[in-house]
């Protein structure tokens, strides 16, 4: 237990500089816009008074360091800034939008794992036919672009079979069944490609483990093939699979931006897209910051999981 505790503390310490570096990057986005960001935001019809007001509001007349520090200070108090168009506090706006994105990516991830990992194990242990079938799925899943698959699924399930609504969103608290029904198509769209990655990773990781000498010793002990695969091979393959899941969370969050737009889901991704088209930089900043934070937190959780699965990882550097 103390092994995992010290590993967790060490890993948490590493997260602090990562978060700081990320905040600097996000902060710089708005400052790297060519020309005057305030004029870009307000458009060419803005009066000088408007520009001066917004510049003052954003604090752009102060030094970079002092701007960054006050922004960071506000962040640490949970204040993400203000939407320059609606004047709404961004913290509230994101609190509304975040659950949608989390539900979409979370369900997609779980679906992809539920499809990809068992198929990967099946592929690693099955015969040539199984191998060929799963290989076909991998090639299709990785090659088909999300947005195309989404459109095709909408055509099929809402255009031809009239089974599912093509887009839109209902809060889970209001109508859980309708909420999940409307999530099916976007979740499937995101999950198919991810499932293909997880299948491929699981197959190669489990296959590699099954060639290890300790598997021969397990067989010599009379351990059943089922237990060898699920008790030993999958556990040893776990760190590789979890690593890929952690990386793919980032891909999935990126994909969510497209899918939220396609299916009209009011998530963080669509907020960012709208923010970009309206040159509403504080919104873009807050949205990107939120998504990046989710990614860093997920990476942290995945690393802790790997440390728990493989004692050699969490032992490293202790003694």
């Amino acid at each position: 237990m103390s092994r995992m505790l010290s590993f967790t503390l060490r890993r948490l310490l590493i997260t602090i500089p990562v978060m700081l570096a990320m905040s600097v990057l996000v902060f710089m986005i708005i400052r790297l816009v060519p020309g005057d960001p305030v004029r870009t935001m307000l458009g060419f019809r803005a009066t000088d008074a408007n520009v001066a007001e917004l510049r003052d509001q954003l604090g752009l007349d102060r030094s970079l360091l002092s701007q960054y520090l006050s922004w960071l200070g506000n962040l640490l108090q949970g204040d993400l800034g203000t939407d320059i168009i609606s004047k709404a506090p961004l913290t509230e706006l994101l609190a509304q939008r975040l659950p949608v994105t989390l539900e979409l990516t979370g369900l997609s991830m779980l679906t992809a794992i539920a499809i990809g990992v068992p198929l990967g194990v099946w592929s690693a242990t099955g015969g040539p036919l199984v191998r060929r079938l799963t290989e076909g799925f991998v090639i299709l899943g990785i090659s088909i672009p999300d947005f195309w698959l989404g459109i095709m699924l909408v055509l099929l399930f809402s255009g031809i079979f009239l089974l599912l609504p093509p887009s839109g969103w209902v809060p889970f608290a209001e109508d859980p069944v309708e909420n999940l029904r409307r999530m099916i198509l976007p979740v499937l769209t995101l999950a198919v490609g991810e499932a293909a990655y997880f299948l491929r990773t699981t197959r190669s990781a489990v296959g590699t483990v099954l060639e290890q000498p300790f598997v021969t010793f397990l067989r010599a002990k009379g351990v059943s093939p089922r237990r060898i695969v699920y008790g030993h091979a999958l556990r040893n393959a776990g760190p590789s699979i979890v690593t890929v899941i952690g990386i793919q969370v980032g891909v999935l969050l990126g994909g969510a931006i497209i899918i939220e737009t396609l299916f009209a889901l009011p998530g963080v991704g669509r907020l960012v897209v709208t923010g970009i088209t309206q040159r509403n930089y504080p919104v873009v900043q807050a949205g990107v910051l939120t998504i990046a934070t989710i990614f860093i937190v997920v990476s942290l959780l995945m690393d802790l999981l790997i440390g728990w699965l493989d004692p050699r990882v969490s032992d490293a550097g202790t003694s």
Partner: protein
Amino acid sequence: MSPVLDIAQAGVRFGTGPAAVKDVSLRVAQGEIFGLVGESGSGKSTIANAVMGLLPATARLDGSIRLNGEELVGLSESALRVRRGDEMAMIFQDASASLDPTWSVGDQIAETIRAHRPVSRAEARARAIALMGEVGIADAARRYRDVPHRFSGGMRQRIVIAAALANHPKLLIADEPTTALDVTIQAQILELIDRLRRDHGTTVLLITHDLGVVGQVCDRVGVMYRGELLEVATTEDLFTRPAHPYTRALLAANPAGAVRGSRLPVIPQEWSTESLDAANAARDRRAAHG
């Protein structure tokens, strides 16, 4: 008394290749340590895997292998699995590679028990701790939860031995069990195997290329060359009166008896089939007269 292990005219062929093991017959009595020596590729490990039913799917096995009078050749994989780890066990050269790095050592010992006995988790755990103590792991109860990389190579081989012998099998096959260890640890592991066979009456088939190991613990020895069993003798006879010219060459090449500064004799690279036949005939004549 009937032998625990009775191999008769066993042959192994991989795919369409030449025979890896040809017409090997040997019997090992209960409680005996039988050494099988030979250079790499002589077929000694193939025999071990044939007995355990661990040959790859491409291998063809014929002849007869009996364990306690029961024929093993032709048994299904599931029938063999029930016997592995229960009636017969095997340990391998590299103990570090034989253990699952993510499982605690104690659970890996308990796993052998639970694969064959309907005992509770707690009961298996208690037995595993007792076994760890028996093979010389100090403070076994506390170390039960430790993973393999926290043990030294010699300790890991002790854990492998405990996991293999957890159900007190009649036969233990040890395939180069000390090759990866340094000399002092080697001697300790051999002593442990010797002690366990005396305590439990376990029959041991010890596979090695090291004649020093043979001299230390084996009762009888078989010499293998190119898939054939050239001669079987008591350890004393093998060292003092080797019957086969190949055995003499092997003994002469043993660095333990070499004179410092002199060159070690080299075993001729290729023994032609004719010379092998002639040598076998000479051995048989001597055996008939002796």
